[in-house]
């Protein structure tokens, strides 16, 4: 679907006419990210992060495929081939640092993308499916990133794999057999490393597939926007190309600048020194932590330190960790306010900025801290708030809140009134 005023693809030469008849790929691109996709004219820079996430997925796939040409997934040599890439492969160090920091950047942009969606309630009807697919992508990313971190076979790789697969051991009765089945043994070894490599290679393409569905679902209602009101007329939109290709181009430049600053000047800043020590099953690191992007969920896992009635503490932690992400699936139905944008929701906005954001910041910090006081108490408070925010506060706020008046249209929000739009502000085509 698209808006009635969306421009139609016109093949300009014989070759394109031929293609358009036999396999209308150019038309598909034109309607997806070209001039054939009308987009609200008022998107802020927070709307750049979807394209950025797609870009970093591509970075990961390209660097990853090349790294896989030089890497050997065997516990005897995995650490050494990683060093071989760093030292002997031409520009291998750049590929590996680009891949490791690319994962971090993929998560940075995806986190911003997700919390942008939460602030503007982009998950609400008619965009529930986009949101659901997005959560699926996030879960797939987490699995992929976890398995990727195991591949260099350093100390954190090994012990991280052991701790995370150990979570399945908390399931009553079948936990231990499941853990052994997942690892292909009693502890992470060659069998685990090999299957992690295989899946780490496979899953990014699954992610790419779900991303296509995500974008497909997006193109049915069209993009949301900072006012949260729907597109009403042509003057509310501009064609994606050239307007948003240009804006995304600039956003991409800024993102790449930050990414390259890290990649070339401090590539190990977000990593852990212990992963430069080869995996050793006999020596447990003083502090086992996952990569930084898992910290909030790791903090939630570790916050459950006491048995709750008949549920053991470990099992409760595992359930809570998975629940903390699964709860996102229910957001479209938990938040029932008819108003989307946080800009027009004073109470929601307060809980977002002074509740959820500090809570997430705290969880990010605590996930990397030693499991000792006062960090445990703080993570317990933050975890309690996390669940209360989504499951109790959000539904309550949406029923008691008095929202601010909405502008009559996107054009009115941008230009002050719709009349002015008619005079001179119409998104007239630009010759490009």
């Amino acid at each position: 679907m698209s808006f009635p005023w969306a421009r139609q693809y016109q093949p300009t030469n014989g070759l394109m006419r031929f293609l358009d008849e036999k396999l209308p790929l150019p038309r598909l691109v034109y309607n997806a990210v070209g001039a054939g996709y009308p987009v609200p004219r008022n998107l802020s820079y927070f709307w750049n992060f979807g394209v950025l996430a797609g870009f970093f997925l591509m970075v990961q796939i390209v660097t990853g495929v090349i790294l896989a040409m030089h890497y050997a997934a065997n516990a005897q040599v995995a650490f050494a081939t990683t060093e071989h890439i760093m030292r002997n492969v031409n520009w291998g160090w750049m590929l590996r640092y680009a891949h490791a920091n690319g994962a971090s950047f993929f998560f940075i942009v995806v986190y911003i993308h997700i919390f942008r969606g939460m602030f503007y309630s982009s998950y609400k009807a008619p965009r529930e499916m986009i949101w659901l697919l997005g959560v699926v992508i996030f879960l797939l990313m987490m699995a992929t990133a976890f398995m990727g971190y195991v591949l260099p076979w350093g100390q954190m790789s090994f012990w991280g794999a052991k701790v995370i697969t150990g979570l399945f051991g908390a399931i009553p009765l079948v936990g231990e057999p499941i853990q052994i089945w997942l690892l292909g043994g009693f502890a992470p070894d060659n069998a685990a490393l090999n299957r992690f490599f295989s899946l780490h290679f496979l899953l990014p393409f699954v992610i790419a597939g779900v991303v296509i569905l995500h974008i497909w679902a997006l193109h049915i209602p069209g993009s949301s926007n900072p006012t949260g009101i729907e597109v009403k007329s042509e003057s509310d939109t501009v064609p994606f190309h050239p307007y948003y290709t240009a804006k995304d181009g600039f956003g991409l430049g800024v993102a790449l600048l930050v990414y390259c600053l890290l990649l070339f000047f401090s590539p190990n800043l977000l990593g852990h020194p212990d992963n430069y020590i080869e995996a050793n099953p006999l020596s447990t690191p003083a502090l086992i932590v996952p990569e930084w992007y898992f910290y909030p969920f790791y903090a939630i896992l570790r916050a459950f330190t006491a048995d709750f009635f008949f549920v053991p503490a470990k099992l409760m932690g595992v359930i809570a960790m998975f629940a903390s992400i699964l709860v996102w699936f229910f957001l479209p139905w938990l938040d029932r306010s008819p108003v989307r944008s946080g800009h027009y929701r004073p109470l929601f906005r307060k809980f977002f900025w002074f509740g959820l954001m500090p809570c997430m910041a705290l969880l990010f910090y605590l996930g990397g801290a030693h499991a000792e006081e006062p960090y445990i108490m703080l993570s317990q408070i933050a975890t309690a708030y996390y669940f209360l925010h989504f499951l109790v506060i959000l539904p309550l706020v949406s029923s008691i809140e008095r929202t601010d008046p909405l502008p009559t249209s996107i054009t009115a929000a941008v230009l002050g009134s719709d009349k002015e739009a008619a005079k001179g502000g119409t998104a007239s085509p630009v010759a490009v």
Partner: protein
Amino acid sequence: MRQLITPRVIAFAVGMLFALAVLWALLQGVGPAFSTLAKYGRFTEPTAEQGFHEYPAKRDFSFNGPFGKWDTLQLQRGLKVYDEVCAACHSLKFVAFRDLSALGLSEGQVKAYASKKVVPGIDPVTGEVTTRPGLPTDYFPSPYPNAVAAAAANNNAIPPDLSLITKARKDGVNYVAALLTGYGPQPAELLKKFPDSKTPPGLHYNPYFANLNLAMAPPLTAEGQVTFDDGTKATIPQMANDVAAFLAWTAEPQLVKRRQTGWAVMVFLLFATVLAYMSKQQIWSAVKPKKTKG
């Protein structure tokens, strides 16, 4: 009854369940945590490690900072310290002799250096395991044939491979230099506060080591232990700095190239981003409202 179990009520119940479970855990922990706080003035019981562990001070190396470069003479001195002191126990398995050309050694010097090393080999006639002089393509040989031998020779503490040591420790370069010069007697205050923490026999007190007691005996013991070819006086801090710099190079030999590439990339990206910004402004100028109140 049916109207009572709405989705909202279920959500509320689930939210309260998780919150209560975690707050229940909090309740269990608060008592012990605050009694520890009342007793010691901090949330965890004080230990000798947290009280006496020291973090290395930042040292001035030529390769610090975004424009830093290797001081090849220093790296050569560091190589000599590794060779004559560290190599007795520590391997350097990811570094090949050919890599030493980055230290300013000529092809002939690399060949000569390699040939002085004995590496494991196969007798070309009998096929028996033997040794042979090193070639530039060989890697630094390990001082021990295997981990068991390394453990047996060192009181069960296997000396770590040094190739990546400065990346495998927090603030690695400064840490290595500080550790090598940080040995000393245990402070009397430590023994007074923690009488059980006396350094066990066979270990050596070093506040830069995470648990304070290190199996490695002080390796740099006397001035002039190594004779530097460039005439630099081989004081203990000098040797420590030089070998730390050398190990920074073994851990990240592409460091300087990486930053140089980085500068080129940053300049290009900055230029491209400015252009992208300008074209974005140009394209949007047609639909952007003029800066009036709106």
